[in-house]
C-alpha cells in the first residue's frame, strides 16, 4: 500500500457532507425497503443489498462527474443511486415491470442506465473490472477526460479478471478508478482466509500503481480520496486503487441467515453505522441539527415509498418485450 498521495479535500472539489448524507439516506431507505419487499415476495429473482456500505457509494459518487462511467457488481443499487439513477425507474425494474429502467429484462443484478454513465450492475464476480477498464480506454482514446469506476468486492480480487484488468489499466495508463469495497465476506466465506495477504491495496504494488486504504464507513473520507484519485486519473496519471474497509450488514443475498458471522463482529460494525458517522460530524460541526437529519431521512423514505407505490401499479412487460433488443438493426 502506498500513502504517497495526500488526499486533501481542499485540493479537489467535493460536495458538502450534508449532500453525502442525503445520498446515504436514500440508499439506506431504498435498500431497507427492497430487503422487506423481497422477503414478502414482491420482488422476484435474487437481491443483494448494500446496507452498511452506503458511505462508499455516496463518497465515490460525490467525487465523480456526471459523465463518468460506473461499472458495478451484483450489490450495485447504492452505486447506481449515488451516480444519479432514478429511484422510480430502478424500483420498477426490481418489480420486473415493463416501465422499469431495463424494461424488466435486467433486474437487480443487471440494473443499468448508460444515459447516466452507469454501465450496469453485473452478476459475474469480477466482470466490472475489464468493462470499466474498457470504458477508460474509450475515454482516453476519444479524449473525453471521463473517469471509469470499477466497483468490486474483495472477493473479486482472486478472480483472474481482477489481475488482468488492473494490469491493463496500468500498462495503458488509463483513467480507471478501481474501488474495492472490502466488506470482509466473499459470499459466505471470511475473505481473510482466502489470500495469504488479505490487504487488497497491497496488491497494487505488484502492478506498479498506487493505492490507498480508507475508512469505508466515513463518506467524507471516501469522497476526499476518490476526488483526488479521480483528479489524478483525469490528469493522465493512470489508474488508482481505493480499498474501502466496510461491512455488509445483510447476507450475501437477501435470505442468507449468515451463520458464518460472529455476533460481536456484526454488532461492532453496526455501531459504526455510516449515517451515524456522518450525522454526528454534521451535528458537531453545526452544519445540521438532529431534526434536520431526520427530515432528510424521512424525505428519502417517502421518495422510495412513492416509487414502490408506483411500481406496484405498473403492468409487467408486454410478451413481445422478451423478443426485443437481442440484436440491433444493421444500418442500411
Amino acid at each position: 500500500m502506498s500513502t504517497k498521495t495526500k488526499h486533501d479535500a481542499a485540493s479537489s472539489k467535493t460536495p458538502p457532507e450534508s449532500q453525502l448524507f442525503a445520498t446515504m439516506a436514500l440508499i439506506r431507505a431504498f435498500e431497507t425497503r427492497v430487503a422487506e419487499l423481497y422477503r414478502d415476495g414482491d420482488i422476484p429473482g435474487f437481491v443483494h443489498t448494500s446496507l452498511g456500505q452506503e458511505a462508499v457509494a455516496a463518497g465515490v459518487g460525490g467525487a465523480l462527474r456526471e459523465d463518468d462511467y460506473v461499472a458495478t457488481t451484483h450489490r450495485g443499487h447504492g452505486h447506481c443511486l449515488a451516480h444519479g439513477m432514478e429511484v422510480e425507474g430502478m424500483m420498477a425494474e426490481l418489480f420486473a415491470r415493463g416501465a422499469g429502467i431495463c424494461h424488466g429484462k435486467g433486474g437487480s443484478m443487471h440494473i443499468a442506465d448508460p444515459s447516466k454513465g452507469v454501465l450496469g450492475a453485473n452478476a459475474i464476480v469480477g466482470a466490472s473490472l475489464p468493462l470499466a477498464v474498457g470504458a477508460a480506454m474509450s475515454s482516453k482514446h476519444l479524449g473525453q477526460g471521463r473517469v471509469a469506476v470499477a466497483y468490486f468486492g474483495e472477493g473479486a480480487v482472486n478472480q483472474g479478471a481482477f489481475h488482468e484488468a488492473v494490469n491493463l489499466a496500468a500498462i495503458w495508463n488509463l483513467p480507471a478508478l478501481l474501488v474495492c469495497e472490502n466488506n470482509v465476506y466473499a459470499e459466505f466465506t471470511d475473505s481473510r482466509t482466502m489470500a495469504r495477504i488479505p490487504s487488497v491495496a497491497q496488491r497494487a504494488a505488484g502492478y506498479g500503481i498506487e493505492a490507498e486504504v480508507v475508512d469505508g464507513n466515513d463518506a467524507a473520507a471516501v469522497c476526499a480520496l476518490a476526488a483526488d484519485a479521480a483528479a489524478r486519473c483525469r490528469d493522465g496519471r493512470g489508474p488508482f486503487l481505493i480499498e474501502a474497509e466496510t461491512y455488509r450488514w445483510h447476507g450475501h443475498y437477501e435470505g442468507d441467515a449468515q451463520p458464518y458471522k460472529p455476533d460481536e463482529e456484526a454488532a461492532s460494525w453496526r455501531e459504526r453505522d455510516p449515517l451515524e458517522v456522518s450525522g454526528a460530524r454534521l451535528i458537531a460541526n453545526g452544519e445540521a441539527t438532529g431534526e434536520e437529519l431526520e427530515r432528510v431521512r424521512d424525505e428519502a423514505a417517502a421518495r422510495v415509498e412513492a416509487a414502490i407505490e408506483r411500481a406496484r401499479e405498473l403492468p409487467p412487460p408486454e410478451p413481445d418485450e422478451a423478443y426485443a433488443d437481442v440484436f440491433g438493426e444493421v444500418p442500411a
Partner: protein
Amino acid sequence: MSSETAAPPQRYIDALNEGMAAAIEEDERVVVIGIDVGAGGGIFRVTKGLHERFGPERVIDAPISEMGYVGAAVGAAMTGLRPIVEIMFMDFVGVCMDPILNQAAKLRYMTAGALEIPIVFRMQTGAGKAAGAQHSQSLEAWFAHVPGLKVVMPATVADARDLLLASVRDPNPVVFVENRRLYGSKGDVDADPLPLGRARVARPGSDVTVLTWGQMLRRCLEAAGEAGAPSLEVIDLRSLVPLDLETILASTRRTGRLLIVHEAVQDFGAGAEIAARVGAELFDELRTPVRRIGAPAVPMPFSPELESALLPTSKAVSAAAQRLVAEG
C-alpha cells in the same frame, strides 16, 4: 465501401488485412486489439503493416491476457469504440468466454437496447497441419447457441474482406471465424458483395444440395468437380447467425437431398440444428434423410496421418452424395 486500393487483394490473408485497414480508415472509432497484432504484425501476419500505417493508438498490442483485453474491448465497445479484437486461436477462447458469453452477448438485451456493443471477435481455426488438440478446434456452434452473437465464417477471399467490413459496421457483437488453412488461398474480390446473413450458392447443381462453410467449401467444390459425381449444388453458408434458412430450403426443395459438411465435430454441431430445421420444414419434400459429415467426436490428434483420417475429404463428400442419390 470505397476501397482506395487499386488492385484487388490476391490472398485471403491480404483481404482480411485490407478489410481491417478499410475499417480503421473509414471510422475513427475502430481499433484493433490483440496479442502481437501491433508491431509484430500478428502471429500469422494478418495485421501486418497496420501498426506502422495507423499507429499504436489504433492497433494495440495486448499482453497474453485474453480475459482482460477481450473484456476491456467489450467495455470499450459499450462506450463508443468499435474494437476488432483478436483471439489468436479459437481454442484460446476458453480463457475469455465471460466477456463474450455474459457481457457482449447480453448487455444490449439486459439494458433494453440502451447499450450497443459493436465489436468483432476475430479468431481462427483450421485443422490439418498437426497443430494438436488445443489448436485445431472449430467451435462456431458454441457461439451460435448463445443468443445475441452473430457468427460469421468467411470461406472466400472476397468474403474475408467484405464480411469483415460488414462485421465491423454491424452494431452487434460478431464472432468472426477465419480459417488459417485458407490464409494463402487466392481469389478475386466481389464487386457486389452479398450482405452478412445471406448464404451464397457457390456452384449450382440439381441432384444434391451440399451446405458447408469454412475450409470445407474447397473440399465440397472439389467433390462437385469430380468426374462421375452427381450434380452438386454447393452452398457456402457464410454465417451461422443470422442463418439464411431461406436459401437452404429453396435449394433443398429443388434437389430433394441435403448433405451438410463441416470441419467441426459432428456430434451436437451446427449441422444438427440445420438438419432438424430442414427436416421440420421439408419432411414431405425430402427424397432422403438429411445427412451430415463432420469430424468424429475425438480430440484432434497430433499425428498428421491420424488427423487427416478424421477431417472430411472431398472423396467422403462425393461418396456421401452418391449414396444419397442411390437412396432415393
